[in-house]
């Protein structure tokens, strides 16, 4: 039985607990064992087994009283970007050494309110800056998948790579991620799981270590579309402590499922056929179009003419916002301090020692594009281009209900394969970053395997605050793809 408990989806765990087939403690213990067994993946920065057991004991008491909450007893992994009260929170950075937040992020507080069980904090690219989980101060995370006939370690995507690895390897039933340019969807694609970035404003950003505030959004990472719908409902909602969180009711997303896609118009953007994209990804995309058509949807070719400008605009806007957000790491109030001869010397030495190379690069780019004389030419111009990208989507959504694209231009790559060229790494996000710039919801669904046996995802993009249609379309892709492959490295 215990082997099977880690295979259960969130929905199955919920049903089994309700029917008394097993206890929350049994579920928690099975996942703790899986977490210990899979330490070689380095998916977690901090494991919290005692916390998981006490959460699960409380879940069992609630279930016995007939007072089960929506996520009662469901074991979750939390990206180490979410502040968790009294539990080390590092953002994958040396500069947050020893930081134990005296408060809880709104999103995680809502997950605990709904009965979820905390397994631990997952590894990530430092400050969520990366697409491979190799920039973490806590060493890279391994993808539980490897190429057929090749046991080289592959990256789990990033920045939410610890979360994607944990869910794919059956260590956690679900995990939280955050997505600024693709950091939920790309790792989901690389590990064969579902990753959902909601509309900007759907989830509170309060208590999530900030990277680029106008782009950051939290979302669920799960093994099924239904699970993403269940977990998102608990994560979402208005929060007075985040002025950009939207005061609108949170629908019961699960109820949107099972409705099919008959008559739904699916946009296929011609600009997403980029140079150098693997042929198998193009074929999978065409397959996805055929699946949705077979399910009764109507494919419509659309244009998103400013697509190719999205990455350069992103690499001005995100570093600019990051350089401002990361100004708070000064060695004075929390985390690492490197002593200095003067206050300025302390700041400069602390930040030199505390930030890794990619973070330093982005903070410096951000500082430069915001500096006197360059603000208009870079930052303001990038914001105008951002408006054009958002307008492309607004116009497209006059004609279609949802948009289908590949999630990433390649399958998972080996550690170090793109390390020496930052721009090659940035291109991972070519299909996902537009969605953040426009503030729209997007979801990656596992859809097939590459020639060498690695998972590939398809992305669906929806109208702002229309996650329900997005879940419906994602379910149709999931149903047609019948993705049942599992990684060799699963528990």
């Amino acid at each position, binding site marked *: 039985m215990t082997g099977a408990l880690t295979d259960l989806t969130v929905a199955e765990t919920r049903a089994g607990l309700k029917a008394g087939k097993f206890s929350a403690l049994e579920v928690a213990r099975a996942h703790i064992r899986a977490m210990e067994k899979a330490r070689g993946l380095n998916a977690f920065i901090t494991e919290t087994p005692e916390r998981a057991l006490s959460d699960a004991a409380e879940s069992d008491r609630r279930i016995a009283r007939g007072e089960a909450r929506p996520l009662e007893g469901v074991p979750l992994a939390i990206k180490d970007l979410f502040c968790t009260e009294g539990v080390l929170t590092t953002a994958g950075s040396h500069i947050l050494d020893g*930081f*134990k937040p*005296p408060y809880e992020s709104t999103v995680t507080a809502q997950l605990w309110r709904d009965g979820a069980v905390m397994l631990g904090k997952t590894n990530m690219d430092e400050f969520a800056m990366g697409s491979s989980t190799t920039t973490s101060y806590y060493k890279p995370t391994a993808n539980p998948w490897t190429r057929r006939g090749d046991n080289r370690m592959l990256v789990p995507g990033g920045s939410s790579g610890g979360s994607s690895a944990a869910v794919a390897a059956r260590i956690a039933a679900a995990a939280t991620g955050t997505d600024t340019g693709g950091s939920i969807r790309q790792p989901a694609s690389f590990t064969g799981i579902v990753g959902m970035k909601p*509309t*900007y*404003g759907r989830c509170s950003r309060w208590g999530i270590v900030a990277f680029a505030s*106008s782009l950051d959004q939290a979302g669920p990472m799960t093994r099924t579309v239904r699970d993403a719908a269940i977990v998102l409902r608990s994560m979402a909602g208005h929060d*007075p402590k985040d*002025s*950009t969180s*939207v*005061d609108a009711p949170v629908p019961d997303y699960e109820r949107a499922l099972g409705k099919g896609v008959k008559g739904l118009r699916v946009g296929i953007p011609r600009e997403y056929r980029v140079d150098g994209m693997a042929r198998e990804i193009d074929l999978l995309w065409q397959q996805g179009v055929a699946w949705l058509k077979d399910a009764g949807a109507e494919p419509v070719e659309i244009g998103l003419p*400013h697509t190719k*400008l999205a990455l*350069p*605009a992103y*690499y001005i806007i995100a570093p600019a916002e990051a*350089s401002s957000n990361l*100004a708070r790491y000064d*060695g*004075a*109030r*929390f*985390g*690492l*301090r490197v002593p*200095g001869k*003067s*206050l*300025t*010397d*302390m*700041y*400069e*030495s602390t*930040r*030199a020692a505390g*930030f890794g190379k990619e973070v330093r*690069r982005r*903070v*410096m*780019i951000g*500082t*430069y594009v915001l*500096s006197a004389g360059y603000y208009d*030419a*870079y930052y*303001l*111009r*990038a914001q*105008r*281009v*951002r*408006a*054009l990208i*958002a307008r492309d989507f607004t116009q497209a959504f006059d004609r279609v209900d949802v948009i289908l694209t590949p999630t990433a231009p390649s399958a998972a790559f080996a550690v170090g394969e793109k390390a020496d060229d*930052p*721009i090659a790494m940035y291109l991972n996000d070519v299909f996902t970053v537009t969605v953040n710039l*426009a*503030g729209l919801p997007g979801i990656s669904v596992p859809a097939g395997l590459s020639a060498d046996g690695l998972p590939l995802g398809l992305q669906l993009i929806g109208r702002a605050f229309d996650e329900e249609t997005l879940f419906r379309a994602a379910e149709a892709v999931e149903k047609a793809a019948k993705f049942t492959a599992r990684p060799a490295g699963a528990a």
Partner: protein
Amino acid sequence: MALDRKTVAHIARLARIKVRDEELDALAGELSGILAWVEQLQKVDVAGVEPMTGTVAMDLKMREDAVTDGGIRDKVLANAPSTQGGFFAVPKVIE
């Protein structure tokens, strides 16, 4: 636009990140590479387009002007590398 060593040192100073002299050339190369790549934005016609600062059009909410938090000094100081008499302690600023 290619950045020289002097400009990189200036940016590092503005960003309050100590950069060693021997790192300046490599950093200038990396940062120049990124700036050359984003240069393509200069060709876009953005005349009459308003800069986009946020994605959701909504007004900021007003709330009552009242104290909603506070009185948690020990919690605020709990993570500090150095404290003195209930304050954050840092190197001397004024001689």
